[in-house]
């Protein structure tokens, strides 16, 4: 028992420390410009202050109601799909009740039911029922995940680890119970401890009964006479029945124990019941210790995330991001908390509007569930390499901010806020969208703009199919420049450095690279007026699109990583 208690306390300690550490990170890590303005201390103080304010206000009622809807009934998950909801309810409630009726039976049930014994019904049945429920849920979840894998490979190490841990706990639990059922040594021990008689004859009769009714596998042969069976039953009623119901109610373990009849002597001899007990509780405690470091941290982060979202007056089903609100010290904290609430369920990616793009481009950061992983990494370690940032940037700027992911996230994460702030963070690091990188002022701050360092001296694009024929027709009439709404002046908007006519001229001369760097190409609002009015049928807007496509593909795919300087990591200083 020492080992049991000892490992429990160690696991519990590790778990608690882990939880403190993880929650601490909510105030330490930052994402986006909002984080930079507020110190860790300020964020913690502000969060505590807000919590106190909320608890002592009417908002607490709204939060309570939200908790019932989101945690007890898990309605957002139901909205995402019945199969998912069912799987998770089975796992969640199965495990919860296993905790109540089994793991913490002595602590939670005994005070209310003094006659509690784990070997009594309905506990046999309940244990098996909830255990089976969990296994059923797991199988559904695995099937679901495999189904989804057809769309994208969305299973990480943490997902597999989660399945394994639960699998081991449940598996070892059922096996343990089965092995305990057949265990002759355990029977002997119990007889020694609890039987009020040591009459060998009576013991034999009891054994007969137990072998027959309780599937204990004894060495040697036992009587099969009815008289002995009945006598055994009387003995059972006298000494055992108070604490032992028929294990047939254990509708999983009992059939398993029946299957173990042939290896039973071997198992009993080697005290499999003890070994499996170790395996079982050590697995449970391992799970407990690993809780804050595994996927199961969501048990803590999700309810808190929901409560915080509700408290931040974020509206109901549509979960609109809190627009127009000045980011305060709680904003950054909320983002990190949101990152922690992700269970990698992938529902966001299934609903993502730009998921078909992923199928063509292959950049995983396009998918919300994967993008979040990148962002999480960046929040923990802001200094990432060019490859990472480029990949994340590519995916980030494909997002159209349709908010579907935000609307379906069952963890209540305001994904849209995360995407927006990540875009800002990337801009500041010099990994903004291609437009802003190409429009960045070239004057003076040249060396400070990582994008420019990258592009300078590199040939962005070469000649390509389809453009030469069009270009030869240009007579430089300048109708395109006249109709273009962007080539204009005002007191604050300077004239484009080149007009469409001039860009076309550069292209006619084969100076594609220079043309692609022109402001005009990136400031084009794609209104198609130039193409429409061109008297020579030149597809000017389409040509500009073509140039943009080529620059994008060059920036993201062709410029080698080796040419990146420290500037990319810091996003500014070149020394």
């Amino acid at each position: 028992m020492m080992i049991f208690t000892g490992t429990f306390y160690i696991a519990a300690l590790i778990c608690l420390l882990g939880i403190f550490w993880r929650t601490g990170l909510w105030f330490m890590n930052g994402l986006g410009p909002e984080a930079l303005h507020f110190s860790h201390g300020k964020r913690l103080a502000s969060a505590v202050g807000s919590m106190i304010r909320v608890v002592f206000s009417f908002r607490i009622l709204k939060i309570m109601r939200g908790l019932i809807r989101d945690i007890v009934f898990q309605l957002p998950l139901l909205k995402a799909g019945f199969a998912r909801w069912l799987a998770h309810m089975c796992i969640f409630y199965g495990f919860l009740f296993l905790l109540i009726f089994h793991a913490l039976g002595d602590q939670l049930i005994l005070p209310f039911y003094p006659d509690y014994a784990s070997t009594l019904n309905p506990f046999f049945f309940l244990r098996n029922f909830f255990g089976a429920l969990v296994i059923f849920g797991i199988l559904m979840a695995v099937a679901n995940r495999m189904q989804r894998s057809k769309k994208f490979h969305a299973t990480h190490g943490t997902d597999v680890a989660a399945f394994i841990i639960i699998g081991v706990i449940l598996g070892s639990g059922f096996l343990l119970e089965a092995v305990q059922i057949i265990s002759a040594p355990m029977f002997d021990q119990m007889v020694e401890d609890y039987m009020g008689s040591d009459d060998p004859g009576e013991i034999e009769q009891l054994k007969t009964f137990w072998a027959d009714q309780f599937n204990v596998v004894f060495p040697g042969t036992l009587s099969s006479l009815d008289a002995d069976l009945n006598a055994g039953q009387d003995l059972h009623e006298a000494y055992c029945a108070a604490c032992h119901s028929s294990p047939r109610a254990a509708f999983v373990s009992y059939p398993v124990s029946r299957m173990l009849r042939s290896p039973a002597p071997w198992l009993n001899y080697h005290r499999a019941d003890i070994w499996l007990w170790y395996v079982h509780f050590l697995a449970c405690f391992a799970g407990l210790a690993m809780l804050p470091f595994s996927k199961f941290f969501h048990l803590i982060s999700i309810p808190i995330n929901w409560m915080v979202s509700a408290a931040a007056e974020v509206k109901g089903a549509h979960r609109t991001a809190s627009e127009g609100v000045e980011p305060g010290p709680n904003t950054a904290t909320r983002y990190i908390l949101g990152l922690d609430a992700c269970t990698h369920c992938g529902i966001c990616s299934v609903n993502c509007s730009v998921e078909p793009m992923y199928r063509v481009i292959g950049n995983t950061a396009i998918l919300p569930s994967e993008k979040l992983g990148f962002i999480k990494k960046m929040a923990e370690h802001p200094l990432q390499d060019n490859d990472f940032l480029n990949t994340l940037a590519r995916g980030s700027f494909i997002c159209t901010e349709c908010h579907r992911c935000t609307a379906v996230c069952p963890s209540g994460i305001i994904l849209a806020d995360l995407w927006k702030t990540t875009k800002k963070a990337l801009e500041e690091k010099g990994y903004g969208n291609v437009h802003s990188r190409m429009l960045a002022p070239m004057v003076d701050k040249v060396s400070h703009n990582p994008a420019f360092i990258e592009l300078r001296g590199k040939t962005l694009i070469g000649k390509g199919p389809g453009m030469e024929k069009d270009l030869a027709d240009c007579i430089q009439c300048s109708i395109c420049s006249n109709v273009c709404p962007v080539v204009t002046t005002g007191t604050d908007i300077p004239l484009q450095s080149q007009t469409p006519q001039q860009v076309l001229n550069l292209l006619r001369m084969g100076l594609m690279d220079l043309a692609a760097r022109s402001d005009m190409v990136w400031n084009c609002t794609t209104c198609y007026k130039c193409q429409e009015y061109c008297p020579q049928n030149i597809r000017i807007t389409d040509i500009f699109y073509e140039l943009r496509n080529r620059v994008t593909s060059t920036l993201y795919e062709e410029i080698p990583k080796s040419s990146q300087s420290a500037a990319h990591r810091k996003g500014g200083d070149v020394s």
Partner: protein
Amino acid sequence: MKENNTTCDLLVIGAGAAGTAAALFAGKKGISTAIVGIASHLRFASGLMDLMDTHRTMGPFSQNAPWTAVQAIRTELPEHPYAKLPMETVRLALSQYLSILEDEGLTYHCRSHENVQVITSAGTLKTTYAVPAGMWPMDAVLRQPHPFLVVDIKGLKGFSAKQIMNTLGPHHPCKAFSVDISQASGDFPAEQIARMFEQGDIRDHVVSLIRPNLQGMAAVGFPSVLGVCNSETVRLSMAEKLGVPVFEIPTIPPSIPGQRLETALVNQMNKQGVQAFLQEKVLSVDRVSNRGFECVVGRLHPQTTIRSRGVILATGRFFGKGLMADRKGLREAVFNLPVLQPEDRKLWHNKHFLEEHAINQAGLETDGDFRPLASDGQPAHPALFATGSILAHNDWMRKKCGMGVSIATAYAAVSSFERAMMVKEQPIEIG
């Protein structure tokens, strides 16, 4: 939304000066009409309407009499398009055309027996038959002795007040002034300038810059960028603020008066119920029979088939791509009609640039009803007509009769078509 197939009585191919005029004349007559063409070519118009500007019979500017010249041409050059029309038709065509423009708020003025005097952006003097209202004051200003101010806008290509002053100075006193409203150093396209002039604060700013230079000036001339639409309001408000008449001087193409013309014509076609397939071309002619034509229309790829009983070919010359030239010769782009052209490519151009060039007389020969001729000298089809600069024997750039020929021949072709539709006997079968 456009259908994939459409039918009409008359299909006008080409949306330049002749094509749009033909479509409008036909619309006014109640003929069910469709037009296909790149209307933005009209932006190359200067806004001036030449009837006949250069002929040996024409005296110095003050006696520049276009109608007399037209009459003379009809006698001297019996092949010229004007010779195929009664004078009355030319008058009628022009007056109807100008009244159509008037309906759209684009007023033109003329002196009817004498050409109007205008300044070009090079500073030379030119005469023309009709000018937009914005340019009209120029004529009066040129006929009086006092100097006027010429203003240019920084960034506007092809218009320099100083150059105008230097060139025009010997003929008429004027002063040059430059205005900068862009605060930038690049090209400032005419349309953008014109849009800026539509704003009151910009106008006020410009007026304030000019006022100190108005001493003794009878008028102020601007490049023709005073507003894209509502140009009269813009011009008159400036005139009011400056206290002197304000006029527009034609600019190099693409010009705003050309754009105003395009807008007016396109809007009028809408009102006349003309089915417009603008910014598209006839890509191929699928069928030609005595019953009519089937033309396939699109911009780059076939999109619509138009069935019509008659066609007016107004596809223009080289710029309009009505005629295509290669190393061997010229061909007509849509129907492959025979093109009158010099026998040899060597004979296309004169060695001296400012002399006549034979190539400029090339084009389609027609009968008296403007039906283009086949190689046997007979009309290619009873319901196929040709108008505008695609017509042969018409060096319109040298004679300065472009608009006049386009409008008058368009009018005549539409009338011919109308008559053809009323003819009862079977026309010649074409395969």
